């Protein structure tokens, strides 16, 4: 598929909402997926994998519970959208301390939130995990090592040297199956059409065909 970044954002928002997240988080997921695609990372694939994995799971189980050593969930694995939003909310705290969390599903979805923190801090931010690291200056990102669909723990800290950054893209190329998955979840937000809604919901009134 060759889709515009606005299509990515709109589809990701509906899909996340369709997966049971609140609208506010769905908006953030959408921006995050768009940012990844604009930086040549398969954000659509990451989101599709995440919402399939968490489908039917109580999201309260995926909320990070901060303690003195880091952010951990009640359930088995943290949601990167909820953790990412929380990270974004306390971006300026990274000036004073690193944030550790884990385990995290679809961890690349944290990158856009780290990028926001970088813009807030006017500094680079490094996200590191056992097999690699990513450095972002807010707009671009450089990656070393694979990240996969789950990591046991992640550290987010201020600073780091941006390496050769990923290409900036004006389009996204999600796999057909990924795009279908997102649209399948998005479809849950659409009300079934009824004869009544067809007539009244869009406000049929005076003739539209003269």
């Amino acid at each position, binding site marked *: 598929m060759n889709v515009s970044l606005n299509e990515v954002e709109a589809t990701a928002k509906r899909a996340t909402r369709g997966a049971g997240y609140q609208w506010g988080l769905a908006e953030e997921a959408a921006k995050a997926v768009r940012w990844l695609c604009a930086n040549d990372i398969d954000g659509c694939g990451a989101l599709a994998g995440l919402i399939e994995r968490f489908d039917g799971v109580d999201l309260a189980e995926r909320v990070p519970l901060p303690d003195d050593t880091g952010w951990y969930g009640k359930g088995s694995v943290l949601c990167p959208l909820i953790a990412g939003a929380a990270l974004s909310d306390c971006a300026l705290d990274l000036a004073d301390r690193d944030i550790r969390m884990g385990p995290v599903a679809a961890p690349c979805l944290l990158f856009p939130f780290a990028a926001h923190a970088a813009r807030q801090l006017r500094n680079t931010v490094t996200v590191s995990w056992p097999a690699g690291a990513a450095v972002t200056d807010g707009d671009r990102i450089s990656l070393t090592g694979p990240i996969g669909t789950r990591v046991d723990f992640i550290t987010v800290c201020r600073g780091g040297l941006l390496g050769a950054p990923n290409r900036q893209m004006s389009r996204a190329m999600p796999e057909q199956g990924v795009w279908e998955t997102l649209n399948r979840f998005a479809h849950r937000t659409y009300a079934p059409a009824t004869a009544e809604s067809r007539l009244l*919901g869009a*406000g049929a*009134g005076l003739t539209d065909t003269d």
Partner: protein
Amino acid sequence: MTPDVTHIPRRPPETVMRLKRLGSLHQCRLSFMRVLTRRMSREHWRFSRPVFDIDAQGVGHAVYTATGPARSYSLVAFAHDLPPEKRSDRVIADAWDATFALFDGIPGPEDIERLSRNVPLQEAGRVDETELSLSRANRSVRLWAHVVDALASGRQPDPGQIDAVGYLMRTTAVYGSGKFGAADRETIADRPELHVPFQAEMLSVYLTRTFVRDLVQHMARAAGGNSAADLDPAIARRLGIGNSTGLGMAPFIVNHPVLFNNWIVAREEAISRVRGLTKASAEEARAFRGILSRSGRSIDRWTSEHPIQMRKLADLRRDLAAINDYVARDDMQSGRSWDRLCNWSMAALSEEGQELIASLILEPYPDLVDGLADCMADSNADAFRIDGRMPVGTVRALIAESFGWALKRDWEATENCARAWYVSEEKLEPRLGARFEEPIAEYEQPLAPARDAAAAHAGLADWQDDQPVAAFLLRHPEHRHTIRRAQMSRIAPYGEIRDNTIGKNVLPIDMLRAKLSFFGATHFDPRSDRWVRICMYAGAPYPEELTEANADLWVYPDEAK
């Protein structure tokens, strides 16, 4: 010595952002169509029609190219033979009289071939990064037939019938900004000619109007042969392009609070600047009187069969008579004449008349007003991010600033939440339903900021003023949407509608008109409480006629004609 300018503050959001007032806005110097025609004439854009390959049945395609200082843009138009039973303005339609794409540059044969397989399908097709908009139009059957028949038999069409409808075709959707595969707004927003919002879409409609004029002439010649008349350019000039707009536009202004704020602020700043002028020159006063008179002619031609708009039009005509009386009695030059006029209007006129005055006083002052158009885009992507360190007390105050009026309302009461906005699975059409009569609540879109603000405010009740809002949001992700909007209101004080968007009596046409007035639309004609027809570019010079002298005030019918 008297200073020439005094400071008049902008009208406050609690005055401006009421639905009744937003539903009474009129076009002004900052309208996107006028911004475009001014630029094209100033920069001496060139226009051509490299392809017009349409048969005697009116089927084929054409290309219209507009070339500015740095780039060309081409409307690729496809004309179809549409059976009458297929003609519908609704989003759920699947065939149209004509379909269009605005191509970024000059299309080659392979581009045309690709577009011919996709553009006629509209939402069911795909366009690419080289396309800036995708649109379609349907004929006004009665006016189309009248104009073709008249010209084919060697006569000019009846001006009365032209004015009664106003257009030969009306667009029923103009999609831009990444829709159906088109280029994202972000990829073109840095171009000076496309920086002001909706310039690509406005260019597409401007060229569409030219295509429609050419097509009707072509069909008349096909029917009448050598005896067919050429459409009188003065009559052609009166023809606009109609537009049928449904509910999809209403969510737009709620979903883009910073962008909508920027439009409103630009106009309010312009109004405040002009009101602040201590005196007006004789020339400025004369210019205003001339525009007022021409505006009256436009209002004379504005008709509607919808009871709501009929009442509003009666108000407006009464207001116009009062304005004319006022202006006849006043020198319009001394003693802060514009501020006096506005203050008088607030007490004496309906919102229709007040907003007409607010738009018209800008006309004599291009130097004070026109530059504000450059501030109407939204390039502040960071406004989206929540500042989690903000203390709860500050968030509370921000919510109360925009929604103080909503906090005490009983949001459980049927009349306050009778409606719900949703998207139908049928071609993803936006709809507004009856919450307590249809199974739609679980599909509700986040388009009730006032209700949600009241809920967030209540949710914050047990939190200390000095706690960071991040802690609250971790516990209550359901309020992220509202907290984000509350924080946006710091930079976008006009971003929130100060009315209930889900109440029993909400009129979506008020939201449609607010947006369409910024496009520069005239002659709003609601077809129900949820969709509206308008006219665009009526009176505008066609590309070959466009000069700096006629590029701006065409929206006001000429006195002499």
